[in-house]
């Protein structure tokens, strides 16, 4: 009918007719666009009803959980270089300024991030006790109070911190222990024992094995035997 219309247009050459013709076209085309907009909107509505994309964080967490189950990938005191070709190098070689992995993974900024040991970092979770303390599950906190990285030995960050946990929610008894220890870049493990001159009661071990520095698997341990007294999934807080 477009062609018919065009033929008609050519035949009737009078001005008012042309004017009406033009109006007709414009209105018509506007209606077409309205229809398109409407159809598109309906499609978008339908699309939005489907489940949304999973966010990257969830995927990363899932990948790390799978990876953790697939392990152990390296012998003790060795850690993975990451990347496609698996390679293990000594924990003492990570982030020391020298590339030891074939792919240079041991010096990558993600691995060598000091985020885990920033002063004031605090890791909190509900600790479930399997011994050492007669306590129902309560909050436990590991807080970093000081950190130092020696120029000549960079693969460790030496830290001081505090372990606190609640033992009774009614009278709010909180036990606190000053700790000192280190964080190793290769194993992503923060390991702390009793501060010098304090009674060796508890230590803490947190493994950042979830692919970021905001989640860790922490344990409250006996500092001598490393016997696990309690464990908690910690969030940075």
């Amino acid at each position, binding site marked *: 009918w*477009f062609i018919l219309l*065009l033929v008609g247009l050519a035949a009737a050459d009078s001005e008012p007719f*042309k004017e009406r013709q*033009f109006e007709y*076209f*414009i209105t018509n*085309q*506007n209606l*077409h*666009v309205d*229809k*398109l*907009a409407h*159809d*598109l909107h309906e*499609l*978008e509505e*339908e*699309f939005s009803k*489907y*489940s949304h*994309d999973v966010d990257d964080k969830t995927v990363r967490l*899932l*990948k790390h959980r*799978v990876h953790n*189950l*697939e392990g152990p990938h390296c012998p003790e005191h060795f850690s993975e270089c990451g990347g*496609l*070709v*698996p*390679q293990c190098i000594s924990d003492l070689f990570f982030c020391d300024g020298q590339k030891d992995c*074939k792919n240079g993974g041991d010096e990558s900024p993600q691995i060598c991030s000091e985020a885990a040991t920033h002063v004031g970092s605090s890791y909190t979770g509900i600790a479930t006790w399997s011994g050492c303390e007669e306590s129902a599950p309560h909050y436990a906190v590991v807080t970093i109070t000081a950190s130092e990285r020696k120029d000549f030995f960079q693969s460790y960050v030496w830290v001081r911190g505090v372990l606190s946990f609640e033992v009774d929610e009614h009278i709010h008894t909180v036990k606190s222990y000053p700790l000192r220890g280190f964080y190793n870049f290769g194993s992503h493990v923060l390991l702390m024992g009793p501060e010098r001159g304090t009674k060796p009661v508890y230590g803490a071990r947190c493994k950042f094995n979830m692919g970021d520095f905001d989640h860790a698997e922490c344990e409250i341990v006996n500092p001598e035997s490393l016997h696990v007294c309690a464990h908690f999934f910690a969030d940075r807080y």
Partner: protein
Amino acid sequence: ITAGETWSEFAIRQADTMKSLRLLLAALAVVTAVLADHHEHDHEAQIDKLLERTNKITHDIYDFDSKLDARLDPARIRRAGSLKHRVEELEEHHCPEHSHQCGGDDPQCISDLFVCDKHVDCRNGEDEKHCTLPTKEGDSFVGDVVYDNCTRRRPQHITIAIESVTVHKYYPASPDIHAHIEIHTDTDDEEAHASLPADGIYTFAHDELYLYPPEDDGLALLGEFDGYDFDHFDGYIIHESSHKACAHFVFTRKK
């Protein structure tokens, strides 16, 4: 994707949406064509406004289209599949030895020998759906060493070049592969190059490439694809007799 729906169903549904999208675009083309014809009078302003609307809706349609494409991205589906495969490797094997899991929502086990034999054996037909050979004539894969406790030359890299593939008409489930294993070694005293001709087979049931020992040392090569990502595979050098792995290389397709 709603629960209980497979990726392929999702893809089909998305394809329907794509069809409507195409119709929209076609209608749009008509609008634009008519506009072009009548772009002559003093009604410029009105026409410009209409054009602007048309452009905007075109833009919106393309936006929506790319949103759909992002969901259907084959690379993304492949990555998800690879992760799923890793979980499946961790899980208990549900099928007896020498049998194959049909997959999908219907966990059926069929014999390895029936996978990709041009005859549907799984109720869901999965056994005949993924039968594209990843090791075609002319393909080559470069492997980087992970560990190596047995090869004669202890190379850093191995290249596998596929020379020819023979698919048997009456038994297409495991094509014969003829390949060359290229080994370049560079030690302090000498530089050596070896090109070992090796015969083998590809098994669709396990997505495995097996090359019989090219030398008299009884060392064969077993390449395991994960079934989704066909640009990489784990290559194990194994003792032919015991099937014990003594070296591991990670292979990447040479593009």
